[in-house]
């Protein structure tokens, strides 16, 4: 039994080649965990095959809310070892890992052969065969027992799962296989379960939990804030957001269009939004690249729009199923010419709801496009979170209800926002334009009009620096304090938050700042947060340090800045950040751009 496992959290990797059903096993276990009142998260790592390729379900369970995977996996359940090397860089095994494998398995990888952990060689496949079920259900039973779950609750979930899928005939053999796996675990739970059992209070809390993915959470935030139109073109890992919205939008009176490409999608969004409907599209890097021209039009013509980029590994087609934070600089600069616009990023699955709602609110309020940068990790992570109150932000656009006499669509106002007359409003007829224009939206090439409209479009965003703090509470999340700070954006916040907690346990008190509003830059606000900070660690999942360079170009930073970065698909982990923190607490002197792996 692994020695280093905290009884508070445990990480399991379930791997196997096509047909072993490891992803289903992961899903079932996560749901069991959720119904038990524990927290957990699940990500999937799959091979390039469309169907039946090798895959891994990566599961972490804890007695406290989770935002990220742990550094290492404590349990590895391997249905077989086919193509295991494709994952090995992503799945770091704990030195005390517990490996559960088939006794007849061949090609056992070196990391397993040489592990100092324990290896159980069991008749997994034979057991499955006997029951008429599949090896993944043997795994569900075996692992479920190790995790302290009961036979009946596991059976319940299997029943629920297959009846929802209208595959009732699979229920019986699956339960039989699960039970056989459960029994197989008997000799191995003598020293107790791997995880402390949930308390009664925890169990009772299960019904106040949600099992949700980041993509679902983004879509929920959009609907909550009043989003009613979506257009998109399938692309991994954003497709499932569109697929989730597709059947739900009509209930809210909205509509989703599968466009012929991303150019069409963004332009449909602009058309709908011009008509007055809060609208979004969801895509990933290649689609964002194609939307650049449309985003520029939204800036120039002042049309609200929400563009969700669920980032995957780039450049180009890259690695579609894996996560990275490499679209930051494109998102900020996504248009030719001076085209300031909103860029935001949710920093955990729960926050996907909030930041998306806020982004839509801001886009509508400031009449400009907002890019929301999620990523594959957040988007496709299935997570057990506490049910939350829905955020307050609504779309609410400044609308010109009627016109008497002269209506100027792009009038110069104090806050840079001009009331928008929607089509259908009598007397306010005008033509919006991506050509530079005067206040009346008429094309103009005059020096003065260009200068005034540029300044208007910039000002409405940059005035956010002067908004009252209560309107801006969501711009960043801050925890801890001290002379050393970690600065993150997006999904890198999870490991950083955990690192800061671990550091505190070591007596190192540091601050964590997670920036959710990336553009316009909140210079005064960050300055305030960095007051007294002497050393700053910038954490991001890129190779080139995009966040670091962005920060340098817009902010005054402390003397010592340490760049802690790593490209995907290996995730940023809590202990990677912790190491950087420990080091930062020691070092002094100007040491810009130290890269820590």
């Amino acid at each position: 039994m692994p020695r280093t496992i905290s009884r508070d959290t445990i990480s399991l990797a379930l791997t196997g080649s096509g047909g072993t059903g490891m992803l289903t096993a992961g899903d079932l276990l996560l749901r069991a965990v959720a119904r038990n009142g524990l927290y957990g998260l699940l990500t999937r790592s799959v091979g390039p095959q469309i169907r039946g390729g090798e895959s891994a379900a990566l599961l972490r369970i804890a007695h406290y809310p989770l935002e990220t995977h742990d550094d290492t996996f404590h349990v590895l359940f391997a249905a077989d070892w086919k193509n295991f090397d494709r994952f090995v860089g992503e799945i770091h095994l704990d030195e005390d890992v517990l490996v559960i494998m088939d006794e007849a398995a061949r090609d056992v990888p070196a990391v397993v052969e040489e592990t100092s952990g324990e290896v159980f060689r069991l008749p997994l496949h034979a057991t499955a065969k006997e029951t008429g079920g599949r090896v993944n259900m043997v795994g569900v039973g075996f692992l479920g027992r190790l995790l302290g779950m009961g036979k009946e609750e596991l059976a319940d979930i299997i029943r629920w799962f297959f009846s929802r899928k209208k595959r009732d005939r699979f229920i019986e053999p699956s339960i039989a296989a699960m039970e056989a796996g459960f029994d197989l675990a008997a000799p191995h739970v003598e020293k107790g379960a791997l995880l402390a059992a949930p308390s009664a209070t925890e169990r009772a809390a299960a019904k106040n939990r949600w099992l949700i993915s980041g993509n679902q959470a983004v879509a929920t935030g959009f609907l909550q804030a009043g989003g009613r139109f979506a257009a998109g073109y399938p692309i991994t890992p954003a497709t499932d957001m569109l697929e989730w919205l597709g059947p739900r939008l009509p209930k809210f009176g909205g509509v989703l269009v599968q466009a012929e490409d991303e150019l069409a999608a963004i332009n449909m969004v602009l058309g709908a939004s011009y008509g007055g409907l809060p609208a979004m599209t969801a895509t990933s890097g290649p689609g964002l690249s194609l939307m650049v021209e449309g985003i520029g039009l939204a800036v120039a013509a002042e049309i609200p729009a929400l563009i969700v980029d669920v980032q995957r590994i780039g450049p180009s087609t890259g690695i579609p199923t894996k996560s990275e934070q490499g679209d930051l600089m494109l998102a900020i600069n996504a248009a030719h010419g001076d085209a300031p616009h909103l860029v935001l990023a949710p920093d955990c699955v729960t926050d996907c709801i909030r930041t998306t709602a806020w982004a839509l609110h801001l886009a509508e309020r400031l009449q400009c496009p907002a890019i929301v940068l999620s990523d594959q990790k957040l988007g496709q992570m299935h997570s057990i979170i506490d049910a939350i109150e829905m955020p307050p932000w609504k779309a609410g656009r400044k609308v010109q209800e009627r016109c008497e006499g002269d209506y100027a669509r792009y009038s110069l106002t104090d806050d840079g926002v001009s009331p928008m007359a929607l089509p259908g409003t009598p007397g306010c007829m005008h033509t919006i334009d991506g050509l530079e224009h005067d206040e009346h939206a008429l094309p103009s090439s005059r020096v003065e009009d260009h200068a005034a409209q540029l300044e208007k479009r910039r000002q409405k965003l940059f005035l956010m620096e002067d908004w009252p703090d209560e309107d801006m509470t969501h711009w960043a999340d801050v925890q801890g304090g001290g002379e050393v700070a970690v600065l993150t954006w997006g999904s890198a916040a999870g490991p950083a938050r955990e690192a800061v907690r671990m550091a505190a346990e070591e007596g190192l008190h540091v601050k964590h700042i997670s920036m959710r509003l990336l553009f316009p830059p909140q210079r005064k606000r960050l300055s305030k947060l960095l007051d007294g900070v002497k050393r700053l660690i910038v954490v991001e999942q890129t190779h080139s340090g995009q966040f670091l360079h962005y920060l340098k170009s817009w902010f005054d930073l402390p003397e010592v800045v340490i760049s802690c970065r790593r490209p995907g698909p290996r995730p940023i982990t809590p202990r990677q950040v912790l190491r950087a923190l420990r080091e930062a607490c020691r070092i002094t002197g100007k040491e810009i751009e130290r890269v820590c792996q």
Partner: protein
Amino acid sequence: MTEQTPLKAKDYKSGVHPVWCPGCGDFGVLAAITRALAPMGLPREQVAVVSGIGCSGRIPAYLATYGFHGLHGRALPVATGLKLARPDLTVIAAGGDGDIYSIGAAHFVHTCRRNPDITLVVMDNRVYGMTKGQPSPTSEPDFATPIQPEGPEMPPVNGLLLALASGASFVARGFSGHQEELAAMIRAAVEHPGFALVEILSPCPTFRPEQTHWKREVQAGVLKPAASVQEAMARVLSAPELSTGIVWQAGRALPHAVSEPSGDGDALMRELLAGFVP
């Protein structure tokens, strides 16, 4: 309070002075649109005209309706999004031969399939006017210009044929110099429930001075409604190049647009969230 109708054709003009060259066919298109809209009694605020970039693309600002002057090639997706979000509006998309058949060709094909209830006006002058005289997809194979000294040397896009092949439900060609036929055609297109293509021969005296002869050459009313797509295609292929008329009109399902929500917003959201409880 919507506008008092009926309005006169000239009431549909905005008074903004067009940038078009003297004699440009686009003046005729502008006039025909206003002459189509006036007798329909459409309040001006209920009409939205969406365009791309080109001389043609300038048309919305010259109309006293709502307008959207967007990106080169993208008028159709904008118009589609607008119509599906605002089914109450009358949506007209307008573009040039380059705008719609070149950079916008994918949207053209797919809008024909999708069949949103919008009217597309293609102002075909067989040249890129705005960028000063390069061949467009409808240019003749031997239209020689600096960028292609021997001409495009390929068959022009036949917009009507492409529309028919893509499933369009209303297909017509008009001529900016034949105002009555054109105005009637645009009216029929706007009244047609579904996507309607009106390709308009609209001469560019500046870069295609020979097109001033179209006045004499265009044969009105040659294209007559066909009974089947196949027949419509045959007619388009066999009719003289410079002939006009409505060649195809058919009823087809429209795409889903926004509608009434199925209940109160908060209740809907609660129901949605309940789906997340494990």
